[in-house]
């Protein structure tokens, strides 16, 4: 029964996934509902699997269980007030959510963040990439049965969260970035600690790699599984490490450098195979590159202010606001109304740990976005799942979900 709906469901981005009824002699033994309450769908993802024995003949990915209307809520909030909402999109990498918004608003307002601010932001973003990839590695390994790696990864991530706590006071929803800079300068001594951490981290990463990269069972479970070609990946809109696992060296940090990435010396790891193992290798290598970037940031950390010195977005200094009437009024106005942005629209994308995180803002000249649209990498990457699992087995579904590294908070927003 190939209805139009069925066909529409099976055809994604001009590519058609073989429909349930047309493969496997038209036989389908069982429909299994994986999720939304399932240990390895990484949140509340629901995948309806058509099975023929243990083989998958059709997939139907259903989302929306974590929709909170973040884009709509943003329309009633000032730009500064939107920042905490962005924490709740990709909650495993809240810093990059903040960053995406701030970079977009800065581009809209044509603000230039001072060098120290840019370096701190770059360093934080790379630490966040490490933390996010650690969660990915841990859960991905656990999905495939290696439970120990999960605990090792969380041990390392804990250290990174300690740093974030020192910077922002929070361990999950940081709201550390601000339009034109960051909430506060780095606490004294922390840069040295982070540098020492990178040394420790490299050792620990090697330990995790030892458990997986050379492990025959791990190779058997990941090599040749969930293959997506470069053409298909581009057609789907796959970005980030998942795209680079298909052999395309596209990284926004290199393609359109933002923050301080233009000053940094790093490589984009690319693996051509397009399978789960290639995506795994990309992320592992990416962590090593992130460590390089963090070290460069610390070594070349410039002095100076961390926030842009622009009266439009920077609140007046406290001592001035307490002594001058006009500054006092300015201070009140800033806190109540925040700052208006020029009329216009902007799309700006950053390389989040999961891929291209884009913010599209339409401004009507007020202090709130008229429309704010988030282009979440997880949402677009999730589209690849039916392509990845075609012809695979049940056990491969969890490996494939893990390999595209999705976060449902970002998929549904």
């Amino acid at each position: 029964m190939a209805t139009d709906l069925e066909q529409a469901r099976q055809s994604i981005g001009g590519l058609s996934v073989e429909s349930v009824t047309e493969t496997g002699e038209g036989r389908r033994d069982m429909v299994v509902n994986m999720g939304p309450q399932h240990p390895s769908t990484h949140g509340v993802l629901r995948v309806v699997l058509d099975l023929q024995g243990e083989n998958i003949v059709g997939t139907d990915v259903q989302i929306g269980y974590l929709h909170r209307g973040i884009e709509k809520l943003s329309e009633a909030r000032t730009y500064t007030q939107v920042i905490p909402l962005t924490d709740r999109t990709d909650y495993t990498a809240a810093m990059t959510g903040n960053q995406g918004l701030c970079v977009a608003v800065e581009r809209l307002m044509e603000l230039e963040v001072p060098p120290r601010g840019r370096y701190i932001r770059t360093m934080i973003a790379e630490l966040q990439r490490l933390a996010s990839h650690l969660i990915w590695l841990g859960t991905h390994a656990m999905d495939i049965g290696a439970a120990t790696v999960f605990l090792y990864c969380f041990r390392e991530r804990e250290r990174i969260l300690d740093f974030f706590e020192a910077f922002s006071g929070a361990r999950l929803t940081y709201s550390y970035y601000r339009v034109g800079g960051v909430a506060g300068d780095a606490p004294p001594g922390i840069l040295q600690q982070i540098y020492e951490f990178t040394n420790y981290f490299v050792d620990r990463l090697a330990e995790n790699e030892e458990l997986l990269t050379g492990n025959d069972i791990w190779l058997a479970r990941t090599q040749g599984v969930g293959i997506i070609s470069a053409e298909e990946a581009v057609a789907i809109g796959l970005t980030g490490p998942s795209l680079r696992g298909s052999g395309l060296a596209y990284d926004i940090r290199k393609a359109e450098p933002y923050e301080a990435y233009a000053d940094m010396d790093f490589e984009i790891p690319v693996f051509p195979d397009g399978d789960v193992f290639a995506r795994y290798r990309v992320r592992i290598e990416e962590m090593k590159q992130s460590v390089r970037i963090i070290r460069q940031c610390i070594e070349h950390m410039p002095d100076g202010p961390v926030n842009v010195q622009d009266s439009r977005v920077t609140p007046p200094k406290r001592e001035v606001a307490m002594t001058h009437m006009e500054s006092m009024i300015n201070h009140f106005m800033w806190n109540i109304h925040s700052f208006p942005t020029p009329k216009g629209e902007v799309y700006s994308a950053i390389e989040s740990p999961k891929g291209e995180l884009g913010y599209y803002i339409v401004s009507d000249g007020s202090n709130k976005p008229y429309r704010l649209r988030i282009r979440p990498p997880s949402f677009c990457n999730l589209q690849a799942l039916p392509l990845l699992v075609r012809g695979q087995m049940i056990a491969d579904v969890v490996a494939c979900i893990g390999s595209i590294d999705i976060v449902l908070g970002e998929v549904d927003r």
Partner: protein
Amino acid sequence: MAYMTWFERRVIGRLQVRLGPNRVGIGGLLQPLADALKLFFKEDVRPARADRILFPLAPAISLFAALAAFAVIPFGPTTRIAGVEVPGGIANLQVGLLYLVGISSLGVYGLVLGGWSSGSKYSLIGGLRAAAQVVSYELILGLALVSVALVAGTLSLEGVVGGQANGLPYVILQPVAFLLYLVAAVAETNRAPFDLPEADTELVAGYHTEYGGMRFAMFFIAEYVNVITVSALAATMFFAGWSGPFLPGPHWLFIKMLAFLFLFVWLRATLPRLRYDQLMRLSWSVLLPLALINLLATAVVVAVTR
């Protein structure tokens, strides 16, 4: 048996840079008791679509088979107490090995029926996986043990130990059989990396997804009893069981068993899980031919030398 869970959780805790249970009692020693109590007092939930008779029966079959299999493991030599012959184990059968393999394959009925009667798809897939896996690896387990039995010339477990007590342990005479046995034993007991029937990240909990309270506990205990049985059997068949210098029999068996139990836990902490088809391919196209060749070679050597 219950202390196996404590042992496993403490060891795996250590391997995973955490502590494991240490709150209930000294060093968490009362934890298994607390767990058992909790499970005992839990509500007995039966899904609406579950089979009325088979659903409660399945865990009982599993537990029965596991406990019955354990009965023939000899802990020490047969002794005479007040003129009565007291066997070193619970029972000393002449066909102990045959009995053990037979009874332990009964256990798979528990898994299959449990998976089928739950009326849940995850359970069903888990049950099917369990059936296919246990049946495949049962063969290899059996063939590996038969090679040893050929060398020992007896099916009585006590006889096997007796044969090793005076000579070499059979692990040296039958290294291939030992490795085959080890792999098959891990698969037979559904332990990592062959824990597909209850792969929690794929099938929620496999065949016992729908079971709770004491019924779940019965499956759980059965699994651990099986682990202990195969460890004890490995010690008996390949490492001369209870025989050893200085210490009395049961101590030696316990030490050797503990080494195997540690190996089981260690494997679980280290290895990822195989996929269903890979598991089957390993069994039928690698291990089975190897087991047959080993058996044939053993038979020829035994026939020539005897």
